[in-house]
């Protein structure tokens, strides 16, 4: 009987340990249109926020509307007189047979049909975890810090585990940020600013400094879970 218990205990511990193990990004899903971030963000140097236009204003980063896409791919699509039915692909006239040309044609077809593009979701948090994009963007973090080198990806996959431990690690200052990010965060983080303000006001803030000296943001449960 003792044995049973010890074995069970070990099993549980092993299980728990397993849950701490490394996260494997794996292969990203196929999208309705083979959209290459590497071409748009990489080669053509388009800013992330051009398409993900609400990342600095909203909790959601925002998915570009079809009109945003055709704005580049279909000439004059912005004009009020424009009739989607006659939409034609803008460029290039060369290599009509190239793969991406065919993909871009799909886009035009969506536009003609006036249908939204059913992108497959990659990054997803459970509903009970609230993640405001704009706070993290405005505090100076690069999109790549969490989403990985998207500008080099043809098919996007989920780089970070997005597990709670992963969030906490960064909030506690454990995750390494680029020097520039780090300095920005130190100036802008509302948490750091608040603690400084309170210290300046002569309050006892040793709690923070003692427990996590280089904490970047709050790890209070209620900040993300409500």
């Amino acid at each position: 009987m003792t044995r049973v218990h010890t074995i069970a205990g070990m099993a549980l511990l092993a299980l728990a340990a397993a849950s701490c193990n490394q996260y494997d990004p794996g292969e990203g899903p196929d999208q309705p249109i083979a959209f290459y971030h590497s071409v748009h963000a990489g080669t053509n140097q388009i800013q992330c926020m051009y398409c993900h236009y609400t990342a600095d204003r909203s909790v959601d980063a925002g998915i570009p509307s079809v009109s945003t896409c055709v704005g580049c791919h279909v000439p004059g699509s912005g004009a009020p007189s424009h009739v989607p039915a006659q939409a034609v692909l803008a460029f290039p006239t060369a290599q009509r047979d190239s793969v991406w040309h065919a993909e871009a044609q799909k886009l035009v077809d969506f536009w003609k049909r006036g249908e939204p593009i059913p992108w497959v979701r990659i990054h997803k948090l459970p509903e009970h975890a609230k993640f405001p994009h704009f706070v993290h963007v405005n505090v100076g973090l690069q999109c790549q810090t969490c989403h990985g080198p998207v500008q080099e990806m043809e098919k996007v996959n989920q780089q970070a585990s997005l597990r709670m431990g992963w969030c906490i690690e960064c909030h506690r200052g454990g995750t390494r940020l680029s020097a520039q990010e780090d300095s920005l965060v130190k100036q802008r983080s509302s948490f750091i600013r608040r603690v400084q303000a309170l210290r300046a006001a002569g309050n006892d803030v040793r709690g923070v400094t003692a427990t996590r000296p280089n904490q970047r943001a709050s790890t209070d449960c209620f900040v993300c879970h409500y």
Partner: protein
Amino acid sequence: MATETETPTVVRSTFHPEVERYEEVNRDADRLLTKPGRGYTALLALTVSLVGLMVIAELHNIVFGLGMSGLTNPVGWGVYITTFVFWVGIGHAGTLISAILYLFRAPWRQSIYRFAEAMTVFAVLTAALFPIIHIGRPWFFYWLLPLPSQRGLWPNFRSPLLWDVFAVTTYLTVSSVFFYIGLIPDIAAARDSATHPMRKKVYTILALGWKGTDREWRHFTRAYLYLAALATPLVLSVHSVVSWDFAVSIVPGWHTTIFAPYFVAGAILSGVAMVVTIMVPVHRIFNLGKYFTPVHYDRLANLLILTSCIVGYAYGMEYFMAWYSGELYERDVFWDRVTGEYWWAGWSMITFNAIIPQFLWIKRVRRNLNAFFLISVIVNIGMWWERFVIIVPSLAHSYEPWKFLNYHLTWVEASVLLGSFGWFFMWFLLFLRYLPGLSIAEIKEVLPPPLKHPEGHPATVEEGSPTPVATLPSGYTEREVVV
């Protein structure tokens, strides 16, 4: 008193006068393990089906939600917690008899402690189900254990419920260990007498190759002593911790300092009662009169009377304090217990636990197995109601009058309650059939050893101090035996 003077050759034990030789014990123990009758199979089938019922009910809780129970706001705890406390309590008598009485060298424990201890293990095993059954999201139960996880979250060690988790798991582990260690020599005995090859194989494994050598005995006896020494404070602590689940809260009727001793006494009361409830049928069916003698029943009766008095005192004191403190909420709750919707439960608890056991003062009652059995069953029922009365009316009638609302159990809860009994007795029946129910080796301790020259030892005279050959079991002084 020194019986050897009258009959020097045939020496008899004060406790088991009808058992003459060591081998007899083995024979009787083996008798329990032999082929069972129809009754046994029927009982086993019944218990298993009750377990099935519990499983079905619990599935309802898991699939549809705890709403299937009668629980509500404000009564968040009901039959599940009541039954949890009940079973934890039952467990206590076993450890009391096997460990505490061992330390006190009470020789009458030997023949009954194996049953009692088995009862303990299975009762705790039953109780351990309920914390899981009663929570809203059982699939997350492991969050209560201090396991490392990527979240970096730990349980709250300030919560009485966590104390509970530690206390109950510790208790389950330690009592199981204690149970098994005590079994080893007897399993060896069973191994040596087993005829069925399968049984022989299993016993051989379980006996861990025990042969009863001097080395084994030497360490065994000490280890057993220390285990007993550890189990003793543990058993007292476990029900104290369980009582703190309530006492540490601020609910009127729960927030009481006497809870720990009060609960421990109650636990022993219910536990001893359950021992009797189990002993009497076993006694009858396997006719173990040789081992369960009137002496044993008297001793158990003493325990029942004592604890029943303590419990009765606690009841009185609760009401006295409620009145004497002048505390509004306290008074309301206790008034509600005896006049509210569950007044009958309140009164039955007082009658069954504090009054009925007093009949055991009468010799004719406690020597009459049927009467004793009846009383023990009544006490068990009463003790279940005690926990119910403590839990439900207090919650239904606490600070906030707007939420005075009572609780009514549903078929799901009733099924789980029944199922828990099925679960407990299922294990006990299996135990009876497959493990030595009589502690073969330890009973021999209170039997007179086989002696060729009871009156003395010529050969050893010149070897200095001659060993006085006593009829008394080694380790016990005369006074103790005569008690």
